[in-house]
């Protein structure tokens, strides 16, 4: 079995897992007679999410040619480069917009909101620093 087929199988197990957890949460909410405004929608969302993934799995795994086509689509190096660059751009924009918002909110006298965004920006930068150290060790 190729690496990609193993990955597909894992996705199948994950989809079934989502559905099972969804059923447990949904039923648990009813059995325990808790406030279903959280459990019922959350459980139902997990079931739907699992079902969508399951349908997607069967659409891909129906024949060898479709599997190969999907594998190429997912491992295409240009596509991976696009994903990586888009993520970099999103990160940079988040930091810049966050920084601007922190200053703007200070002027608008919205201290609490400004502080929240400042913490979030700092956390992201800290996370980036940790990820940089991890990746640096690998390559």
């Amino acid at each position: 079995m190729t690496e990609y087929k193993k990955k597909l199988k894992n996705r199948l197990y994950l989809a079934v897992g989502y559905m099972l957890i969804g059923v447990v949460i949904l039923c648990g909410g009813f059995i325990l007679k808790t406030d279903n405004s959280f459990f019922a929608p959350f459980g139902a969302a997990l079931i739907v999410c699992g079902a969508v993934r399951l349908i997607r799995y069967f659409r891909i795994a129906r024949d060898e040619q479709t599997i190969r086509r999907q594998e190429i689509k997912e491992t295409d190096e240009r596509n991976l480069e696009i994903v990586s660059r888009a993520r970099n751009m999103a990160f940079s924009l988040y930091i810049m917009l966050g920084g601007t918002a922190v200053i703007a909110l200070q002027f608008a006298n919205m201290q609490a909101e400004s502080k929240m965004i400042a913490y979030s920006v700092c956390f992201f930068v800290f996370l980036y620093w940790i990820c940089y150290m991890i990746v640096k060790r690998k390559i």
Partner: protein
Amino acid sequence: MKNRIRELRKGRKITQDDLAEAVGVTRQTIISLESGKYTASLQLAFKIANYFDATIEEIFIYEEDKND
């Protein structure tokens, strides 16, 4: 980085789809390579060179950056 992919492909009457399938990328990647918008990784460059039975230098032409 320039390349001769289009020239070699047309010379051998191969479609972009065929080449993409053979080297394991999408047709869009071949289009981008041929138009010079995207530069292939070393691994893909080797695959393309092997496919055309040529060396990397015969397909990819390195142009030194004017700023270097």
